């Protein structure tokens, strides 16, 4: 019975978040299109003496690494939307008087949101991997560290947005929190890769990443507890 309920709840939660996924793919298509236009119409061809890129593989590899920024933004939106969308439109109240337990409802929201975030990150990684597998070049260590930092940032953004959205009542305030969090986390990721790792080596870098993962876990747990205790809006 619980499996059947979970299936239905997950279906509903995936549908609740579907617009964010559509935005992501539109954003990815725009970024890729812009990258193609810039490469072939504006920049000198790769390999030429004044060209900033050695090869098209490197150019698209870095473009898709930048796409991780959009993945991070979507992770933040998925976190906030999973925790608050049904509370804001009050459909939470409909679910409250149906049989599934509050615990199962929250678990489904979390699983759907996290699953979609992982799906987007996997899609992004696939694009990077495909680019390098087709081309004649391997990603640099710096680039790999960058991807890793972005993945951690996506996790923290998802978790902190989930926690914030569970605690904050107003959708405007939630949007403001995400608006502040997103550039902050991206900046932290760049600092992590470029400064911490470059200057202080692996240990400092890994410590910082671990702290971010820990922060995400705490935010996720806090959001879950608050959402469990929050009275429904019926």
């Amino acid at each position: 019975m619980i499996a059947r309920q979970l299936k239905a709840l997950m279906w509903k939660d995936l549908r609740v978040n579907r617009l964010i996924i559509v935005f992501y793919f539109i954003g990815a298509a725009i970024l890729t299109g812009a990258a193609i236009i810039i490469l072939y119409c504006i920049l000198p061809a790769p390999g030429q003496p004044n060209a900033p890129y050695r090869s098209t593989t490197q150019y698209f590899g870095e473009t898709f690494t930048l796409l991780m920024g959009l993945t991070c933004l979507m992770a933040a939106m998925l976190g906030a939307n999973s925790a608050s969308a049904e509370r804001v439109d009050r459909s939470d109240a409909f679910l409250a008087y149906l049989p599934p337990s509050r615990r199962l409802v929250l678990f489904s929201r979390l699983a759907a949101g996290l699953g979609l975030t992982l799906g987007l990150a996997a899609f992004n990684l696939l694009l990077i991997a495909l680019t390098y597998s087709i081309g004649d070049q391997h990603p640099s260590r710096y680039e790999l560290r960058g991807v890793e930092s972005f993945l951690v940032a996506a996790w923290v953004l998802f978790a902190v947005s989930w926690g914030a959205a569970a605690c904050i009542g107003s959708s405007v305030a939630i949007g403001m929190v995400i608006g502040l969090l997103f550039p902050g986390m991206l900046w932290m990721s760049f600092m992590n890769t470029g400064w911490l790792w470059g200057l202080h080596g692996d240990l400092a870098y890994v410590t910082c990443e671990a702290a971010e993962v820990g922060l995400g876990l705490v935010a996720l747990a806090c959001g879950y507890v608050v959402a469990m205790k929050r009275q429904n809006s019926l």
Partner: protein
Amino acid sequence: MIEPTAEPAVEARGLTKRFGSKLAVGGLDLRIEKGTVFGFIGPNGAGKSTTIRMLMGLLPMNGGDATVMGIDVRQRPEAVRRCVGYVPEQHLIYRWMRVKEVLWFCRQLHEAWNESLARELCQQFELSGQTKVRHLSKGMLAKLALIIALAPEPELLILDEPMAGLDPIIREEFLETVLQSFCRGGRTIFFSTHMLGDIQRLADSVGIIHDGRLLVHGSVADLLSRTKRVRLALERDELPAELPQGVIRTWRNRRECVLTITDCDSQKVQHLEDAAQVRVVEVLDVGLEDIFKDYIKGQREAI
């Protein structure tokens, strides 16, 4: 007369809820027998919905305890929701879903679901599965909410002002469906509404709540037969010093006075007739709507 059964459908003892310093429901005792229709009436803000939400386990209670179909609400609120069909006043069904998706979704969440009943009701209400919930009118939304409540074939149906704002035709259709589809096989209805005519027609027992306190709780037939209005002609501009027990409201206009008396019998009328300078003009039967108004106004005027 309703025979008390061993296990009531709903039993609450000292049910209390506070919102900050405001007492929403204060020590409410309630017993609803299985297989009966209970009408729960009260003015806006009296505590009807709060009581229902506590009984459904949707709102934690500050005091007292309650069982619904023998299940302790505090201990097992989810088990209560499994055996109760609930139609709230506001139908907050997912607006982006289609009707068929809502019904599929609800079917997956319920252990028992009578699919043929759901289809039959959809046909009866001319509710198309392809229609999006956001495109349904208020009346159609209420009908969809009713299908969701009836299809799991619950033992208890709680209706919390589900027909507020609906036109009389849809209201009639709604009530007929409830009666035809639900009132078979000794199931119980807990019906909160402002439509007192519906309560008088359908309910076996009634509860009148005001300011979180239950003023009356008993059989509708008893309440109607034992509550009377007594019209008096006064010889002076004052009421008799001693009024009989059970006067719930006094209305006076110079030398005419109307008393609404509960548990009114010939002794009480005689008591009035014996009073000096008072003449009983007539004793009138009262409908549920007037009884309700007199209870509430009597309470307000007493303050």
